[in-house]
């Protein structure tokens, strides 16, 4: 029963797509939520993606990187930021297809002028949005790394990054 709940929760998180807000001016930066419900196949792929990736870190929404980045990531799982993150062939291919389907198509967010970003934190939109975040906020034990979205973005795992949802440990809300 618990398993079914986990899967449906994972699906619910992914059906929504991603909400990214830069400033309180929500209209400028909001990207539309996906209105189309996921197919059965995509739902189980989303659940697999969530389970496999979040074993070690937050399962970042596919919309944060372009196809070329996910492709490179999936081909290098034997050395994934210094660790072996390989899966069996069937699961690798399911996750790969899922990422290809939902990867960002927005070059404004992901354009690296020819370079292929492996880290979301290297992409220009991300860099711009986090330019005022201090090193101390990131390296403190409660956050540990810029890769831990959910340390500050309290609804990151559900794909929501609204400014009013930010709560930086030992600092507070983002004003």
């Amino acid at each position, binding site marked *: 029963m618990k398993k079914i709940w986990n899967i449906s929760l994972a699906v619910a998180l992914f059906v929504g797509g991603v909400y990214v807000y830069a400033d309180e001016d929500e209209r400028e930066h909001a990207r539309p939520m996906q209105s189309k419900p996921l197919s059965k196949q995509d739902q189980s792929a989303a659940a697999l993606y969530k389970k496999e990736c979040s074993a070690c870190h937050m399962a970042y929404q596919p919309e944060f990187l372009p196809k070329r980045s996910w492709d490179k990531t999936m081909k290098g799982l034997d050395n994934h930021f210094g660790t072996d993150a390989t899966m*069996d062939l069937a699961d690798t291919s399911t996750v790969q297809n899922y990422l290809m389907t939902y990867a960002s198509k927005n070059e404004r967010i992901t354009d690296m002028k020819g370079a292929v970003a492996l880290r979301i934190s290297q992409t220009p939109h991300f860099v711009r949005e986090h330019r005022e975040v201090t090193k101390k906020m990131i390296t403190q034990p409660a956050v540990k790394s810029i890769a831990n979205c959910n340390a500050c973005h309290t609804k990151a795992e559900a794909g929501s990054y609204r400014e009013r949802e930010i709560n930086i440990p030992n600092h507070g809300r983002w004003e």
Partner: protein
Amino acid sequence: MKYLSVLLMLSMSLMGASPEVEQYMKELLSAAKAENKSFTGFDAARGKEIFISTHIGKQGKPMSCTTCHTVNLGNSGKNSLTGKVIEPLSPRVNPQRLTRVKEVKKWLKRNFVDVYAREGTAQEKGDVLTYIQKN
């Protein structure tokens, strides 16, 4: 039916591994015998040594299984790179452990590579599973 599955779960947790994992360990046993003629059986003490000893891992730095899993298998651990909490390895504390061969194979492969910079032998895998099973 419900009682039956509860009973099944209970007996599984008493064995420390599910039937499919037990089967996998039998396969490891035959493979270990084929690798080493003098091999007589898996040993939890050797498994513990594999688990707690420090090696130069994939990243070229000293590491052991306990770096993330801690020395007490009944405790939660923490991914040393991301900080993500790792549920206890002990099947006694965490009944999900050692139930799916697919998971067991995946993590044995990954974690041997991360800590030992190579895959484990059949004997090493069996030893470390025996250690986890008994703790």
